[in-house]
């Protein structure tokens, strides 16, 4: 296993990043955590419809990997999982969009048809996942195949969890992309839980990186809670993919500190282990310490960001919490381009208009 890490007290700025970029990454980390904390509050007020999925403890690898891509209109495209809120924010998803999604608002990006972070904006560079884990690997293989066919210097990035590496779609997609030399970076998130299932019951290899090697794909294992290490590894992989060197796999070792969803009390996890990761290996705390220890930024700058993020999330919440749910009959539209709407069933027409 290769674990890369930034040595402490290096005087120069790390990984070719500027001070503004270091601060911007901090902003996305803080925004992810603050936004999720706001969602918890809304969940407890029963304003969130359905489940709430936290990325607590995994924000570092999400933000850092996305930050290593080329962003902007029609540049790189990533496909996030439910715990990659940070990656979506980096690519340009707005907190108000996330809030509207979780509250099933008619004004949400999917107009109430899909949940949480399952939405996309291909121009900004993110493609929403579906719940069938592993399926996004073949789809991202197709997207990056298109980049290659058109000679565009763009890359794709797809996240898969440790559990999803057991699926057929993951293996088919990885192999397909490897054979076609697609410019694709795959981030394998070893977060220790697939819902409740531990790695030992999911696969018989030690590291996910071993699986990728079976497909002729360069693979590396990185400390997923070291923001700068994940950034560097992803940047290197993306640069290589962009240069025509095909698929690259990065395993990030991290730890999911909450249950699968907010309803899940994580009884299967050792409380001591969760506590240990929280107190000694939190990606945001570690990043802050690195930034301050090296004197790259000042505490005041971080505090200003914290305040500005709180304001942003407050304003986004206020701006959408009273938005209406989608009108019921809007459920019938857009199954196809043609016909534009599905047929309303006959008995729903019998007692109109009183019964609608």
């Amino acid at each position, binding site marked *: 296993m290769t674990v890369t890490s930034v040595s402490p007290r290096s005087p120069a700025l790390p990984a070719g990043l500027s001070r503004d970029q270091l601060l911007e990454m901090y902003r996305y980390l803080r925004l992810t955590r603050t936004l999720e904390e706001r969602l918890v509050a809304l969940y407890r007020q029963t304003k969130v419809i359905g489940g709430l999925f936290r990325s607590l403890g995994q924000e570092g690898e999400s933000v850092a990997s996305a930050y290593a891509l080329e962003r902007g209109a029609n540049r790189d495209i990533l496909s996030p999982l439910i715990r990659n809120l940070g990656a979506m924010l980096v690519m340009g998803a707005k907190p108000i969009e996330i809030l509207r999604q979780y509250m099933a608002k008619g004004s949400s990006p999917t107009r109430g048809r899909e949940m949480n972070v399952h939405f996309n904006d291909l121009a900004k560079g993110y493609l929403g996942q579906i719940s069938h884990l592993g399926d996004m690997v073949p*789809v991202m293989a*197709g997207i990056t195949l298109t980049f290659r*066919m058109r000679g565009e210097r763009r890359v794709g990035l797809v996240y898969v969890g440790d559990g999803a590496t057991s699926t057929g779609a993951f293996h088919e*997609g990885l192999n397909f992309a490897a054979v076609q030399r697609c410019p694709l970076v795959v981030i394998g998130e070893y977060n220790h839980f697939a819902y409740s299932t531990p790695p030992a019951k999911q696969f018989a290899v030690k590291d996910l990186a071993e699986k990728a090697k079976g497909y002729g794909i360069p693979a590396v294992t990185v400390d997923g809670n070291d923001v700068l290490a994940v950034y560097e590894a992803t940047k290197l992989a993306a640069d290589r993919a962009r240069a025509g060197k095909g698929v690259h796999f990065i395993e990030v070792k991290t730890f999911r500190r909450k249950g699968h969803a907010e309803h899940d009390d994580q009884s299967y996890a050792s409380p001591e282990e969760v506590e240990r990761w929280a107190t000694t290996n939190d990606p945001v705390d570690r990043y802050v310490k690195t930034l301050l220890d090296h004197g790259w930024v000042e505490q005041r700058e971080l505090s200003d960001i914290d305040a500005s993020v709180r304001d942003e999330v407050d304003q986004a919440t206020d701006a959408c919490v009273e938005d209406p749910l989608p009108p019921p009959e809007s459920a019938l539209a857009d199954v196809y381009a*043609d016909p534009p709407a599905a047929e309303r069933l*006959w008995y729903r027409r019998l007692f109109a208009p009183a019964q609608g």
Partner: protein
Amino acid sequence: MPEITFLEALRQGLWEEMERDERVFLLGEDIGAYGGAFKVTQGFLDRFGEGRVIDTPIAEAAIVGAAAGAAHMGLRPVAEMQFIDFISCAYDMLTNYVATARYRAGLATPIVVRGPCGGYVRGGPFHSQNPEAAFFHTPGLKIVYPATVRDAKGLIKAAIRDEDPVLYLEHKWLYRRIKDTLPEGEEIVTPLGSARLAREGRDLSIVTYGATVWKSLEAAERLEREDGVSVEVLDLRTLLPLDDDAILATVKKTNKLLIVHEDTRTGGLAGEITARVSERAFEWLDGPVMRVTAHDVPLPYAPTLEDFVLPQTDDIVKAARWLANY
């Protein structure tokens, strides 16, 4: 004008669309250098190159998933299933990812998934299937199933041009058995969603599709000759969406409906057609809506077994005669 086969018409349709639109490309197993298991794509690699004729690993989920990703980016992929039986390996990708994409996410996914289907060829359980019922239940997909040389060409062209994902089912028993001449200088594009009146009649309607269109036409000739019964035959051509207007029109004309399909009975399309006719034309019926289908067993290999299980012309004659006399 030379006579061409069903397979050649399909090949021409694919070829013309690739010449017309550089966004169209093919992917599938053994389709490039080898030209496809049935040679549908023979010569395509030489003309269009490896960039547009992609030989893939044996991985139907990856083939369909990659096609979907490419379609999101503005391309027009045509994915071949070497035998349509293997489309079940991509069932998740088609039903969960592709079919829902426009609805849940506003994503256009204009892909065509095509492949040889159907029996009567001693193909055994895994090279003879008719998978339409498994996908007919999925909003977001379209399904076409040509029976004629003209529609083999016209429907592949329309499917490629459609903005929605289309399954194109091509009956391998028709590939080289059916021949016709197509007019030169006319671009043939068969609109999706419209049935074709294959034979006009007065006494009884057969609604069918695929290979059993030809068996139904044969049965109709015999009934005319032997019984003086005039049978109308409607070739559905598109299964999803069904052409309700054409089905209701023929029912209201002859007042008797026999539905014939090669697929097994339980959960087959005939049940849905029966329900729609019952809901919307009950008072027009002069007899029960009846079905001729395959028996509810996996399709066996031995000729005696396959012939027994699948609907034959004799079966259609018997059933139609019974219904005509009702």
